[in-house]
């Protein structure tokens, strides 16, 4: 079976491309085929996982070369997959959540005339994402990396007639390209330095290169990871990406694609292990994004954008954990998986709410929806409890471990993560309160109704996963499972016992939740957002996404526009102007030469006579000389 892992990629790819080419005839049943394809991948993934789990711990890795992709001189890239415990977990997450979201989309996109194409893109995304996590070579990762970028581009801009959606798609792609720049350079550096881009070889032999090379490589990879995972400073695209259909936000911009950066860092553990500086950079990026994302999440009234801020923040946690080195890799992946469950759950829940509210996303128009949407409310509540880290829920275990590890690394970093946990509780409680509790604020023409079963079943499954995901940590299973890939070292013993640590975290979370309850649960919420001038600067900054767009605008967009205009002008006037100017000067010179050609025969005769005289004088001079 493990030799057939490539089928995981091939099935959704063939299904996606096939449906795309098939044309209109497939409109009626295309979505079903796509869903089945995704499910088939999931089943295969499960079978492969079982087979892998059945092997000895040392033997849980399969590399299989399909064909040589590129070969020229010393440059050799194989189209090969590498199936190991890390990849196996990702395969399950991607195909599992992916299939659920396919199912959900059947309901969600039921009335969209381009539904078939939507499912094609989803399938292509699944294929690209699986390529990414199964790749055995950095260049193949890059293939999947940009493939998911393309799928993300297509899906964010799925409603192309909306200029905002098209602009958001473009922005996502371009910002990701900036990150890809880093990744491409990192791969080139690998080739120049080590002569190979094979992941295993690179990570095994990076130690023999100098630390500065490893640092450079690590930082370049981090740039790539920042782009894909919406980490500061390349975070600005993620909130705009919420223009896409909600299942897309759930699958791509919450559960899977945006976590690819974390995957990359974990996958490149050899490189990051070799460079302290690169690891520190990862921690700093993670910490900053964690806080910035949480801050934004507190200020947004748009339910999807609030969740997107939360996603940024949670990925910040994962990134931070990955930056902690072997002490954190496993927890980064653990949190990644639990986050995949509960965030997908909540996004789909938000989609269900929007579905009920005629696609209104403003939470100020919600309120008291718990009665109208009981199933959505229940499942959303499971996700909510998981993300704030309510004891016993999956998020509790995963976040707890990261905060502990962070304290083990550095007290200040630990305090940052602790603060983040509190803020998370605050904004999630705010979201819950505004959406499901309080007074009803929706307009008269809106009649909230529970979504059909095809949409609520995935919610229930994911809700259950949010609740039970913590089981992965039972007996340190996930740590052991990943150990062949990322290794493991026990973090430093904390000054206080782990139980006390957990208690402190829970206390902080409770404080955050209570604050939010007091602000939004007890007091009525205005159904029109106060103006920017009426709120204090932290809210203002959060609403403006910490001015990320403004900063990009000032530092990048406008200079590029300006340069472009200048260059276009210079190209016409300068370079082409030089050439046409040369032609004009030649024309003028010939005008000047025209003057002596006055047509008067006597002038010409004078010229001839003068010439004859000259010849005579010259002859004489030569003779005399």
């Amino acid at each position: 079976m493990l030799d057939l892992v490539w089928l995981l990629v091939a099935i959704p790819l063939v299904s996606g491309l096939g449906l795309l080419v098939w044309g209109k005839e497939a409109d009626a049943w295309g979505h079903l085929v796509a869903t089945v394809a995704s499910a088939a991948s999931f089943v295969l993934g499960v079978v492969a996982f079982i087979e892998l789990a059945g092997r000895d711990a040392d033997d849980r890795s399969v590399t299989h070369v399909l064909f040589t992709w590129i070969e020229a001189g010393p440059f050799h890239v194989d189209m090969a997959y590498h199936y190991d415990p890390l990849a196996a977990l990702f395969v399950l997450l991607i195909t599992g959540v992916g299939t659920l979201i396919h199912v959900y989309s059947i309901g969600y996109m039921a009335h969209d005339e381009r539904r078939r194409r939507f499912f094609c893109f989803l399938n292509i995304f699944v294929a690209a994402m699986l390529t990414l996590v199964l790749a055995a070579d950095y260049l193949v990762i890059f293939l999947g990396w940009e493939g998911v970028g393309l799928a993300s581009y297509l899906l964010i801009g799925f409603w192309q007639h909306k200029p905002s959606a098209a602009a958001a798609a473009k922005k996502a792609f371009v910002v990701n390209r900036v990150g890809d720049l880093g990744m491409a350079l990192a791969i080139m550096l690998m080739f120049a330095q080590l002569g190979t881009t094979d992941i295993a070889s690179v990570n095994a032999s990076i130690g023999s290169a100098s630390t500065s090379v490893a640092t450079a490589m690590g930082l370049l990879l981090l740039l790539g990871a920042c782009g894909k995972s919406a980490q500061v400073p390349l975070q600005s695209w993620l909130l705009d990406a919420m223009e896409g259909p909600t299942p897309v936000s759930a699958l791509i911009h919450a559960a899977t694609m945006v976590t690819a950066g974390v995957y990359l860092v974990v996958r490149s553990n050899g490189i990051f292990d070799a460079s302290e500086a690169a690891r520190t950079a990862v921690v700093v990026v993670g910490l900053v994004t964690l806080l910035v994302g949480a801050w934004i999440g507190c200020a947004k009234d748009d339910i999807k954008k609030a969740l997107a801020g939360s996603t940024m923040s949670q990925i910040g946690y994962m990134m931070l954990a990955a930056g902690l080195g072997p002490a954190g890799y496993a927890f980064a992946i653990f949190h990644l998986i639990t986050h995949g469950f509960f965030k997908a759950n909540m996004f789909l829940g938000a989609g269900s709410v929007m579905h009920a509210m005629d696609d209104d996303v403003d939470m100020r128009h919600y309120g008291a929806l718990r009665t109208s949407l009981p199933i959505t409310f229940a499942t959303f509540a499971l996700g909510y409890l998981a993300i704030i880290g309510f004891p016993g829920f999956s998020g509790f275990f995963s976040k707890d471990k990261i905060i502990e590890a962070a304290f083990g690394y550095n007290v200040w970093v630990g305090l940052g993560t602790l603060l983040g946990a509190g803020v998370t509780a605050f904004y999630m409680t705010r979201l819950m309160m505004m959406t499901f509790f309080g007074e009803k604020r929706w307009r008269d023409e809106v009649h909230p109704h529970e979504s059909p079963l095809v949409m609520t079943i995935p919610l229930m499954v994911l809700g259950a996963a949010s609740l039970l995901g913590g089981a992965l940590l039972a007996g340190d299973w996930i740590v052991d499972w990943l150990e062949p890939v990322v290794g493991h070292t026990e973090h430093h013993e904390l000054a206080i016992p782990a139980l006390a640590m957990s208690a402190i975290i829970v206390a902080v979370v409770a404080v955050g939740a209570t604050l939010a309850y007091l602000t939004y649960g007890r007091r009525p919420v205005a159904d029109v957002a106060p103006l920017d001038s009426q709120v204090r600067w932290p809210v203002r900054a959060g609403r403006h996404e910490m001015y990320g767009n403004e900063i990009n605008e000032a530092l990048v967009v406008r200079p590029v526009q300006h340069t472009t205009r200048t260059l276009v002008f210079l190209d016409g006037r300068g370079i082409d102007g030089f050439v046409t100017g040369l032609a004009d000067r030649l024309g003028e010179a010939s005008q000047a030469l025209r003057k002596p050609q006055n047509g008067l025969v006597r002038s010409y005769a004078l010229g001839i006579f003068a010439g004859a005289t000259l010849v005579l004088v010259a002859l004489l001079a030569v003779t005399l000389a």
Partner: protein
Amino acid sequence: MTEYLSLSLILFTIGAVGVLVRRNAIVVFMCIELMLNATNLALVAFAHQHGNLDGQIAAFFVMVVAAAEVVVGLAIIVSIYRTRRSASVDDADLLKG
């Protein structure tokens, strides 16, 4: 010998300057004839110097050609005069660039 050649050259030069300064096409033509005659003188003088008649033959041919040239040239002048009402060489500048 030298004196014949000098005379020939002086006449030639006068003819050439005449071509340059006169504007009446007919006079210009006469100046050209003067130049031709001057060369004829030189040719005849050379024949005398070297004691063979080739120079005279050359002069003879020059005369024939001059006759032909005058015929055609004058015909051209007449036809130009007819269309332009002028025999001034400065009035014909169709070659102006």
